[in-house]
């Protein structure tokens, strides 16, 4: 297990390094000059030179990359801005704010959005899948399969906007989505994010229903389920303790992928509902040619994907003792 973890971690670090390097070097292929943006509209050449030096853009690209990496590990000193302790993600080109602080400021929203929605779509999705499998071919099963087909096909910017239109503006059941920190007001927190949660889960649920249903149908015809039924265990125990356990493996796989990609920023969801999370931050970083911010958001998104794929592999072993992590 330990050897497996070490190997996966090394692999993950290498992957992240490649992604970081790719982002960094590609950034310099973009036409926009961040120094010019930082310098303002009327910019004499000497000031432009000054801005370039301030942003650290005068060194060769690979030197800048090494400096950025070093900042991540041991911190780094900035002229005029002082020391930035490790893990240093640098200062934004646009407003000279420390990137790490901005990220930490936006992260709670994105995490709330992700995990709140995850609770909903996991419960709805797996629940509907189990019910559909147990009632195979009956009306409930048909309803579940039609609903999941539609759910898998709708777009968040369409259904989310429709939901806003009716629930917020026409019927005034909910307020405009907003983020209130959980520690300040738990009820306001849940209330403010309820609409994005529901819309996100509508879209993600479909996948879970489909996979749960098909795996559950398979599991129910397995020998060990028949044995459990034959020895007189109640139906509920057979379903929850035996059949559901095997069903969890594929569910956990897609759950890891979904969580990883959501934490990296649900750009479209945040745009649709006007929430200022990591996704919006990343989108702004791209349009503003804000390299330090872009690096941070890309790294965060990639790290989330990689970390969750490792967690999923560990969970396999927890759920299914037959899986030997070799």
């Amino acid at each position, binding site marked *: 297990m330990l050897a497996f973890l070490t190997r996966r971690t090394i692999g993950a670090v290498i*992957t992240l390094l490649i*992604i970081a390097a790719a982002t960094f070097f590609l950034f310099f292929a*973009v036409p*926009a000059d961040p120094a010019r943006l930082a310098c303002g509209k009327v910019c004499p050449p000497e000031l432009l030179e000054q801005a370039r030096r301030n942003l650290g853009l005068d060194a060769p690209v690979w030197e800048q990359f090494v400096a950025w990496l070093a900042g991540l590990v041991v911190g780094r000193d900035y002229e005029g801005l002082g020391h930035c302790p490790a893990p240093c993600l640098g200062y934004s080109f646009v407003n000279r704010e420390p990137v790490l602080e901005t990220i930490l400021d936006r992260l709670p929203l994105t995490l709330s959005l992700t995990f709140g929605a995850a609770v909903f779509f996991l419960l709805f999705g797996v629940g509907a899948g189990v019910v559909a499998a147990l009632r195979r071919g009956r009306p409930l099963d048909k309803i579940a399969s039609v609903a999941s087909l539609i759910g*898998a096909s709708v*777009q968040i910017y369409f259904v989310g906007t429709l939901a806003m239109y009716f629930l917020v503006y026409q019927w005034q059941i909910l307020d405009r989505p907003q983020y209130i920190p959980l520690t300040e007001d738990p009820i306001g927190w849940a209330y403010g994010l309820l609409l994005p949660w529901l819309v996100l889960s509508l879209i993600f649920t479909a996948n879970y229903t489909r996979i749960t249903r098909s795996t559950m149908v398979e599991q129910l015809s397995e020998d060990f389920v028949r044995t459990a039924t034959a020895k007189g265990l109640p139906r509920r125990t057979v379903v929850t303790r035996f059949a559901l356990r095997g069903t969890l493996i594929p569910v956990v796989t897609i759950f890891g992928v979904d969580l990883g990609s959501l934490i990296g920023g649900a750009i479209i969801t945040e745009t649709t509902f006007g929430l200022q999370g990591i996704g919006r931050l990343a989108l702004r970083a791209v349009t503003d040619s804000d390299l330090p911010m872009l690096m941070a958001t*890309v790294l965060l998104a990639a790290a989330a994907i990689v970390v969750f794929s490792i967690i999923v592999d560990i969970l396999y072993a927890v759920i299914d003792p037959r899986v030997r992590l070799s």
Partner: protein
Amino acid sequence: MTFPTPATSVTPADSVDPASPPRDPDRDVAGLSPGRLMWRRFRRDRTGVVAGIIVACYVLVALAAPLISRLYGKDPYTTYGLDTPGLLNEYGFPILPNGGISSEFWFGIEPGLGRDVFMQLVYGIRTSLAIAFAATLGATLIGIVVGIIAGYAGGRTDYLLGRVIDVMLSFPSTLFIIAFMPVVENLFVGPEEETPIWLRAVTLIIVLTAFGWASLARLLRGQVLSLREREFVDAARVTGASPARIIFKELLPNLWTPILVQATLMLPSLVTAEAALSFLGVGMIEPVPDWGRMFLRGTEVYQDDITYLMFPGVALLIFVIAFNLLGDSVRDAFDPKIRR
């Protein structure tokens, strides 16, 4: 193990009506290629056929857009609302209820510029479908080449390509596609010049292709790894077949099923990806009609004119549902053992 008849070349006339009396058994065994068998099973799947017809309608509308435009008497570029007084109010919203739907403007007019919604929708299919189709083709081709090379060559090549695929799949793709658009565009056009429209389309195709091939390559690699050990491949190798022959005549025919299924699933996902990019403001540019840009405009004005958002929304929903159903049916027809 060769499949001489690709599925696409099978016409309805070739297929056997299941209701007709059984033919000479010998002919049945010898005469039905897998492609024909697939077609026969597909025709019996009513959902699949309906979905296929709907998809065909979309394609037909996209191809016949200029003809429809001529019959309908309008085009997607003219700003009717601005040119003719009495269509838009002082805030730029249609005066008639429901987004200005009338016998003249079937689906209403666009708030602000006052263009015809029906024409925008019809020409928008063209843009989305063409870009998605080209990207699907590109991603599928790269996926096939990389997947087969990795699986067939094995060893160091396989390891290297496997890592490349891993890295590609770990990229936060939406963010990266957005970040990549200006990079790729910069390869062709200077920062000061105006981006031509065709170039933006090509850029979209390139980035969607670049981030689309990896999952298909991984899937095919796995398939080739298991196929490579099968007896018929050994037999071919023992008889002195060249690697090219083994790949094209032995391996590839067995991979058409996953390739076709994956491609049918990839196309609608790329249509929505293209729409999402335009929605975020980094996709197609004015004045090319595009569904994603209709969504963008729709979400800007939805509080006053929800009708404008409904048309691209419902049209895209029907398209994606039909395509997903078609993909399921194609899979069932190819591989009846897998039951959903």
